């Protein structure tokens, strides 16, 4: 951190003397002095262009003697000011010492009125039917500065067909556009998808999209926030309500693990729109289109509204009382007859911390079993325990990364897995941070990387061990840190000694040069963040890779500080929280082992209940068959894996607590309707371990209730008193029994502080995203490395052997996680349908020729575990020998290939008939 006080310059704005950093724009300096300069094209996150001319001001500089450079003074000793002959755009004028600015003079007022009159001369003034009405800078600035009436003949206005779709999500009203270029600059500079541009000249200039499909960007919705008029509007929100009629509830995006802060704007019990809420540590003022448009599941007509019990083979609607009593009785019966080991609980990782905590308590006490796990397609890997050790330090903010810092991303397609994180990594790279993107295929983030080697799938751990080998050979490690803060280094060095650098490079299929160059840069970085994601996990190098990444951070001392450490790109919004809460057969809340006596004692005391002591089954084992009863909360194992149907049919008693009638729910004996995120209070913990609060906004459909509340009632009927009155009570207990959540009471997570009071100034300078008073909300829980007294274990996990080639199956079938799929939540946002591809398989031209396949052909894809039909997409940037298969697409049947659990080998063959329609 540089000293912020160094080299400030003094400027005088409207007689107010203020000290600001040199080089800031006058408009920003004025803001600091409490002086409002109206703007349209200026936006603090975009390159200034000085187009709209609204911010004109008088600017003068002290006159200097040509010879000596000294400031000239008048007789009274005051500096002589040389005024620029013309008004200057204050959004493009950088302050310098002694600068004098006037923003309130008659000349300036005249210019502002002039610019407004000009802008309004081509504007339709259709405010009564404009979605921007009420949060529109043009309206507001006209109110403040404008002429009361126009001298422009209304008949001379331009008229266009309105609106036209600019893309699947965004509508363009050309009449309203004031040609400020905020949207084009956002797409060029922030999103990095330069798909918008101006076409034509002068008054005929209009915004067009050049991409095919149109407006091809995952961030398109943000342009509607920063558009200073109603030219770009959301096709989803269009005519769905006036801005001032909406009730705005603070919330957290329920989709990916980035945890963007959002506002749920609702009216009459229905969500009308999702807007970004400023949090500079998480999402700044942006959200992705999935977050913005993917909310329709909440108000979907097919939500489960009532409890149901299977009677006579059919699920019938019942009262809560009956459903809960029946469920309690049946679970007790099974427990009594077969023992607690015959019961188990599976949960998704999307529910809130409160739900997940109560869920594990329910399974451990009311069911009495440690058969408890999250249902995730990638069961075996998450790395949560290592995150608890060496996760990114508290106070981490990717916005702080710049020159001298480094980010290493291994096996992740960050744009698809965490779009806003992608933006922030891109920006860090643009600020000068070193970015290395390592994967088995090219990804979009690689555009911004200094190094982006394409490695062999499965060779991820080899790659990282190769980096470590270089670091040791070249003495680039922080031996002092290793000696003082870690343990187990010797065993680890012995493990690494079995491999030479050339072998590791060969395993990853990269050059030794690459390894050396990247290792040197990473080791010398001031700050280092290391990320991994879905691609690394499906490649099967999971445990060895994550261990190796943790070790890399440890031996270079890049842990325990802000902006250093491990940042996994986890699959869902609360994957981290689910692990933290102890939804695991192996550990109690807070990663304490089942046999941690102190922890057990504490929990027993708080819960007033006995805890099962024997390790339970994990999710994989639970679906092998053998259990008598399963309680499933917010997960759809049968939908994900239709081959599990048999196992679920054999259960004596299946309870499913859900939002929708999933395939699993259809098989249940009892279905319990749960409330969605916007319908209740709670917290999610994002990939950076930031615990973030969200608030109840709309009512749940029918009699649906929050998960924790259902479980609390059920436990009570089964003789276990949890005693939670509200979600806050649950978090109160979590803050007591989960050590790292100490201090996470609701009062500390944003409380009831005023928020979202968007002033006119905010609309003008930033857009319609919502303001947070403290800009950063939520709290990161500290990792072990932050405690100076903790010695951090380093251990050795050997990388897995590379499988030998198989002539029968010459391709690697790589499952790809896409932002837009046909998942339960996205499927119900029809507006996003345009972005969801049909079931496809991507291969490159050489492989297409080898298998006699052409672009668009139906193909049979075969793996050792089964086959399915897909449409071939030839080209793109898939490496030879790799076939990329997006997951989660309707009708793809790709589960039969077994790829939901990782990469498998396979082959292709052209088939005659077209790919048949969806089967599930």
């Amino acid at each position, binding site marked *: 951190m540089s000293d912020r006080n160094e080299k400030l310059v003094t400027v005088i704005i409207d007689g107010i003397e203020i000290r600001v950093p040199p080089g800031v724009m006058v408009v920003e300096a004025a803001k600091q002095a409490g002086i409002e300069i109206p703007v349209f094209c200026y936006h603090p996150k975009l390159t*200034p*262009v*000085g*187009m*709209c*001319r*609204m911010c*004109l001001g008088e600017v003068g500089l002290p006159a200097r003697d040509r010879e000596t450079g000294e400031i000239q003074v008048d007789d009274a000793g005051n500096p002589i000011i040389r005024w620029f002959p*013309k*008004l200057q*755009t204050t959004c*493009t004028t950088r302050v310098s010492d002694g600068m004098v600015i006037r923003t309130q003079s008659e000349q300036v007022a*005249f*210019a502002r009125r*002039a*610019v407004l*009159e*000009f*802008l309004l*001369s*081509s504007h339709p003034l259709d405010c009564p039917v404009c979605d921007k009405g009420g949060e529109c800078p043009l309206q507001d600035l006209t109110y403040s500065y404008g002429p009361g009436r126009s*001298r*422009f*003949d209304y008949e*001379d206005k331009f008229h266009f067909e309105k609106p036209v779709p600019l893309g699947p999500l965004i509508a363009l009203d050309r009449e309203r556009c*004031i*040609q400020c270029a905020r949207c084009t600059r956002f797409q060029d500079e922030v999103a990095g998808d330069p798909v918008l*541009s*101006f076409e*034509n*000249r*002068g*008054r*005929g*200039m209009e915004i067009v999209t050049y991409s095919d499909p149109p407006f091809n960007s995952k961030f398109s919705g943000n342009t509607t926030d920063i558009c200073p008029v109603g030219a770009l509007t959301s096709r989803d929100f269009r005519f769905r309500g006036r801005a001032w009629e909406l009730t705005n509830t603070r919330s957290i995006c329920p989709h990916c693990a980035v945890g963007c802060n959002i506002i749920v704007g609702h009216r009459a019990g229905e969500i009308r729109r999702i807007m970004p809420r400023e949090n500079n540590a998480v999402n700044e003022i942006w959200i992705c289109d999935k977050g913005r448009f993917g909310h329709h599941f909440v108000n979907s007509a097919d939500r489960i509204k009532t409890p149901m019990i299977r009677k006579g083979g059919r699920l019938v609607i019942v009262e809560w009382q009956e459903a809960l009593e029946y469920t309690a009785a049946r679970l007790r019966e099974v427990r009594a007859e077969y023992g607690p080991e015959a019961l188990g609980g599976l949960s998704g990782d999307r529910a809130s911390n409160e739900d997940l905590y109560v869920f594990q308590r329910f399974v451990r006490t009311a069911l009495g079993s440690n058969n408890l796990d999250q249902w995730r397609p990638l069961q075996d890997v998450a790395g949560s325990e290592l995150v608890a050790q060496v996760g990114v330090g508290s106070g981490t903010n990717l916005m702080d990364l710049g020159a001298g810092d480094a980010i290493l991303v291994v096996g992740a397609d960050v744009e698809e897995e965490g779009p806003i994180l992608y933006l922030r990594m891109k920006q860090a790279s643009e600020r000068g941070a070193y970015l290395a993107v390592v994967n088995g295929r090219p990804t979009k983030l690689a555009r911004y990387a200094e190094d982006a080697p394409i490695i062999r799938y499965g060779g991820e751990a080899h790659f990282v061990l190769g980096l470590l080998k270089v670091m040791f050979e070249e003495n680039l490690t922080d031996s002092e840190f290793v000696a003082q803060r870690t343990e187990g280094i010797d065993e680890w060095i012995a493990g690494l000694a079995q491999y030479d650098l050339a072998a590791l490079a060969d395993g990853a299929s990269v050059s030794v040069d690459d390894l050396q160059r990247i290792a040197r840069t990473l080791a010398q970085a001031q700050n280092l963040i290391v990320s991994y994601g879905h691609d690394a996990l499906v490649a099967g190098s999971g445990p060895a890779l994550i261990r190796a990444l943790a070790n890399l951070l440890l031996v270079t001392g890049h842990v325990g500080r802000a902006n250093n450490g491990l940042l996994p790109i986890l699959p869902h919004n609360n994957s981290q929280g689910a692990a933290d809460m102890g939804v695991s057969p192996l550990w109690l809340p807070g990663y304490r082992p089942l046999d941690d006596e102190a922890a057990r004692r504490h929990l027993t005391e708080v819960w007033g209940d006995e805890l099962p002591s024997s390790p339970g089954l994990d999710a994989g084992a639970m679906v092998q068959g053998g259990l008598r009863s399963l309680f499933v909360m917010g997960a759809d194992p049968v939908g994900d894996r239709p081959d599990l149907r048999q196992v679920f049919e054999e259960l004596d008693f299946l309870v499913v607590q859900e939002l929708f009638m999933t395939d699993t729910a259809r098989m249940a004996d009892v279905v319990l309707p749960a409330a969605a995120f916007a319908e209740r209070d709670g917290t999610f913990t994002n990939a950076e371990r930031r615990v973030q609060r969200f608030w109840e906004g709309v009512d749940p459909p029918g009699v649906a209730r929050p998960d924790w509340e259902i479980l609390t009632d059920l436990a009570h009927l089964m003789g276990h008193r949890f005693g939670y009155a509200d979600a806050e009570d649950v978090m109160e207990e979590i803050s007591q029994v989960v050590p790292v959540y100490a201090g996470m009471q609701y009062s500390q997570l944003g409380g009831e502080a005023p928020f979202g009071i968007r002033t006119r100034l905010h609309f003008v300078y930033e857009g319609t995203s919502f303001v947070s008073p403290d800009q950063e909300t939520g709290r990161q829980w500290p990792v072990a490395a932050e405690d100076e007294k903790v010695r951090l274990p380093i251990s050795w996990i050997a990388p897995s052997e590379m499988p030998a080639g198989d002539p029968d199956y010459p391709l690697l079938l790589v499952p790809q996680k896409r932002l837009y799929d046909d998942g339960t939540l996205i499927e119900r946002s029809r507006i996003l349908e345009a972005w969801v591809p049909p079931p496809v398989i991507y291969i490159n031209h050489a492989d297409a020729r080898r298998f006699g396949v052409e672009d668009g052909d139906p193909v049979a894809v075969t793996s050792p575990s089964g086959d399915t039909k897909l449409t071939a997409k030839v080209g793109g940037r898939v490496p030879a020998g790799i076939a990329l298969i997006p997951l989660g697409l309707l009708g793809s049947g790709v589960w039969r290939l077994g790829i939901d659990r990782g990469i498998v080998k396979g082959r292709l063959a052209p088939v005659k008939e077209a790919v048949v329609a969806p089967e599930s």
Partner: protein
Amino acid sequence: MEEHIVLRDLDVPGIDDIDTYMAHGGYETLKRALKEMSPEDVTQVVAASGLRGRGGAGFPTGRKWMFLPKGVYPRYLVVNAAEGEPGTFKDRQILEHNPHQLLEGIILTAYAIEAETAYIYMRGEYLKALSQIQMAIQAAHERGFLGNNILGTDFSCHVYLHREGGAYICGEETALLNSLEGRLGQPRVKPPFPAAKGLYQKPTIINNVETLTNIAPIVEKGADWFRSFGTEQSPGTKIYALSGHIRRPGNYELPMSVTLRELIYDYGGGIPGDREVKAVIPGGVSAPALTREHLDITMDFNSLMEAGSMLGSGAVIVFDETTDMAWAAHRMMRFFSQESCGKCSPCREGTYWIVNIMTDLMRGTGDVSDIALLEAVASQIQGNTLCPLGDAAAGGPTLSTLKHFQEDYIAHVPVISSQ
């Protein structure tokens, strides 16, 4: 005038051929400069000559070159051949008939500013000029005046020809740079100035064709020789492109001490039918109109500035006493409105609005308040735009004709007979 400095094609027929050009001393200056002079020497001579830019702004050329930040490379030279100012056809004659003198000037300038790449950004409609320059570049290459290690020295220079797409605004230097880079042809905010951050954000010098065609003679004959023409503040000759109501329209290369009256009557042969001058636009349609009161001013940068107009490109358009100046202004404003790039709001909206008001007047559907409104709208543009186009449109055709020829506007207001 004994001899032309720039329009040497008038004295030496066939000088567009490299052999003819060389037979008359062509490329000798380049040979001598590369051998005997440092880049700084060349810059010094040009600075001492007092040569001012012939594109319109009249900025001292040598001083512009000296603005290049030290030690930042690569640098680029961009030749502004996007001659789009209505009434202007002076660069065209050079490009079509004296291309090698321009090219020699380009190479000398590239040497002076240490640029190895020069782009000629050429008006798209100049088809003959395009082929002439293309052939000249090729011929110069063949003789070793262009390419790597020119004449055996360390200096290399490559010249590329770029054909403009037909936008007036791309004659504005920063819009030109955007267009050359493949971006939207809209002006950039200054600062940074092109000398600091120009083409591809690198130090760039942009000079007009006529300016560069002066370079070889200046380097050959020296600053004092050049200063023996014209005035103290505006040394050298200038090509005046004479058009409008004039007996002998055409390009006249004259010292900048010539008066407007001499230009019109002595060189241009006066006005057909011996009618009176009503108005003169002395520097292309961007320049405010003058009246017959101004005929005795000298046609140099400073005198025209003092008279409330500007030398601009040196396109002198003469209007005789039969001209309806409101009608003429309407024609000119339609041009500006058509050519406004749309980047900044006062120009985009204001020029359109002015055209609407003027159209109303021309149709006889305006009223007397429109004349005040015209003045108001033009004043709202003036001084508030991003680049000079809007300022020129407001201050040139609109405000200057309103000032000097308001009766022409009033004549378009229908007379409502009082009962």
